[in-house]
């Protein structure tokens, strides 16, 4: 297995990673067979760093985050591999131990704050509840902590807002409240699963700024799951591109955007709308993602890859490429470096 440390430049002293994920796989048994949602993910992360996980729907982004959070424990999902968080393996850790980490050491923010907040309890109660479960505090102290946190995430008159219900809040306010809930115990790791997808564009920027600001204050690590490359470029230090439950490319954010090495990442970048596009049309990646019930033997992206023929001899269809890393920039492709460079420059 190739060692890959996208967040740590090679020159920096090698430290024990804060989070180190090795060969993480998640399979779901269904009536139609075994769905391979995540297939051998490797990445690591240091405190204070932000890792963006990018991919289309069904690429395994959210499942990866739920596996790290231990939310798949007690379900039919089969999680294998290793995920060392400050020396503890999140994959094998029993539910009771995982529960002590959740909320206190690892916080999580979800995509749709309206459905992620309980409709029957006040926003303040839900935040205070997260504080009370990990701190021996009185209700009054928990309330004070929650009010302070609501203020910190930029909710005006937090003392009054504490007693309001989620349906009284606007979308952006709800996501701020979710962030307050996730951060009230100051976790060292924050996982944000598409935190801005359900929000207006202007609100998106505010939420991202807020997250970056709070992350800097607490020196926590952030895993940002998104399908929005613009968001990644704005806040991430390193990026991991997922396709069909695998990491197809990973590396520092500049490397991914300016020295793209995988045809899928190239396709993603090309499909982004730009202001000066001449045709006025978007350029989608043709085809459909592979069925996770029956993954192809070769490269998972081969059926949609325009350049599969270039590697020659049908190798892309028959042989699964390994993740090869060079200066911390990993890619899972049969094409040679010069071939990729030619392709990239031709567009």
């Amino acid at each position, binding site marked *: 297995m190739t060692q890959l440390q996208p967040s740590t430049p090679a020159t920096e002293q090698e430290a024990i990673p804060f989070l180190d994920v090795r060969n993480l796989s998640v399979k779901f048994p269904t009536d139609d067979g075994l769905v391979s949602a995540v297939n051998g993910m490797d990445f690591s992360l240091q405190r204070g760093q932000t890792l963006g996980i990018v991919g289309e729907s069904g690429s395994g982004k959210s499942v990866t985050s739920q596996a790290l*959070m231990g*939310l798949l424990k007690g379900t039919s999902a089969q999680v294998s591999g290793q995920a060392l968080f400050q020396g503890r393996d999140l994959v094998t850790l029993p539910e009771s131990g995982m*529960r*002590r*980490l*959740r*909320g*206190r050491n690892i*916080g*999580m923010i*979800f995509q*749709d704050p309206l*459905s*992620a*907040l*309980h*409709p*029957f309890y006040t926003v303040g109660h*839900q935040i205070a*509840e*997260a504080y009370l*479960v*990990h701190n021996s505090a009185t209700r009054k102290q928990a309330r004070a902590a929650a009010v302070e946190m609501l203020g910190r995430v930029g909710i005006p008159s937090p003392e009054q807002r504490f007693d309001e*219900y989620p*349906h009284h809040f606007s979308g952006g306010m709800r996501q701020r409240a*979710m962030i307050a*809930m*996730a951060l009230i115990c100051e976790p060292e790791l924050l996982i944000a699963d598409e935190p801005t997808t359900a929000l207006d564009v202007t609100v998106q920027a505010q939420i991202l700024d807020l997250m970056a600001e709070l992350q800097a204050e607490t020196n926590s690590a952030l895993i940002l799951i998104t399908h929005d490359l613009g968001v990644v470029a704005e806040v991430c230090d390193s990026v991991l591109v997922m396709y069909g439950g695998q990491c197809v490319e990973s590396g520092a954010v500049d490397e991914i955007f300016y020295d793209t090495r995988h045809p899928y990442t190239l396709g993603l970048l090309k499909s982004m709308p730009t202001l000066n596009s001449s045709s006025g049309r978007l350029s989608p990646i043709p085809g459909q993602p592979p069925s996770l019930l029956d993954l192809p033997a070769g490269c998972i992206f081969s059926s949609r890859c325009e350049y599969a023929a270039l590697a020659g001899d049908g190798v892309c269809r028959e042989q699964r490429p390994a993740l090869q890393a060079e200066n911390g920039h990993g890619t899972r492709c049969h094409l040679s470096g010069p071939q990729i460079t030619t392709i990239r420059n031709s567009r």
Partner: protein
Amino acid sequence: MIRFILRRSGSLILLLIAVSFITFTLFQLGPADPASAACGQECTPERVAEARVALGMDQPFLVQYADYMRGLVAPRMIGAPGAESVCQWPCLGKSFQTNEDVSDIIGRSLPYTLSMAIGALVLWTVSGVGLGLLAALRKGSATDKFIVGAASVGVSLPIPVTGLFLLLVFVNQLHLLPFTTNEIASPLGPQGPWAWVLNYLLPWIALAVLFSASYIRVTRTNMIETFGEDFIRTARAKGLAPRTVTFKHGVRAGITPVVTMLGMDIGLLLGGAVLTEQIFSVPGLGFTAVRAAISGDLPVTMAITMLAAFFVIVANVVVDLAYAAIDPRVRLQ
């Protein structure tokens, strides 16, 4: 809140007037002849005519109805001219059969119906919601399949079958329980609460088997849906204990449809469980209503019908209030 209750009380009264009018009309159109039923064995046409006058049935239909409704507001005189007696407010008329005040008859039957309803209600809610929740938590397991299977058996067992089976086994064969007696109508009576429980245990079980089946299914379906909600994932992500996630976050949100069912069923049951009362010979409202309908005893039939309608309508209002208490998004207006 106050305005809501006032408005609903207004519509309650209108509905009750409509129900009373329809019942009154149906009775007039029907084949029952209370006068000849009341005059007894040796009947002459003259005595039937006298009885008709005594019952007030010689009057035009609308006059009879107006007389009846007047009794609901003030005391009135009932009986043949010269032999009238006072019917105290609230006057629901006098029984054509026994000449007793209907309010007394209701007052006598209601405790039996209440005794049956309360125990059955507690039993089926606890077993129905409990088993439904267990099945939802163990979704797909053998426990779940067993509970769902038992629920489909329970819902297809009619009261006469369960009732007679229970009587046969526990009273006739095992002699574990006494046959239901009319002497115990309340847990506060001289025999004490335990005798009350034993006396009504079999009817409770018979009703609970039938009712809890649908509670199991509704609870299970709703809880499975609720446990899949995002806010349950949030609760887990906060590190809350499984018990807190299940009850505080899950059950509170998933239980509302059960509250609706419960309200409706309480309303229905308080109007009298006809079959159960017949089988266990409990002289409650249902039992009394059947006797009254068969013998053409209009005042008793009217009173029980209106009482049943009253309970159903009040249950509706209570359900709405309960919804507002459970779900802060619901506003009463």
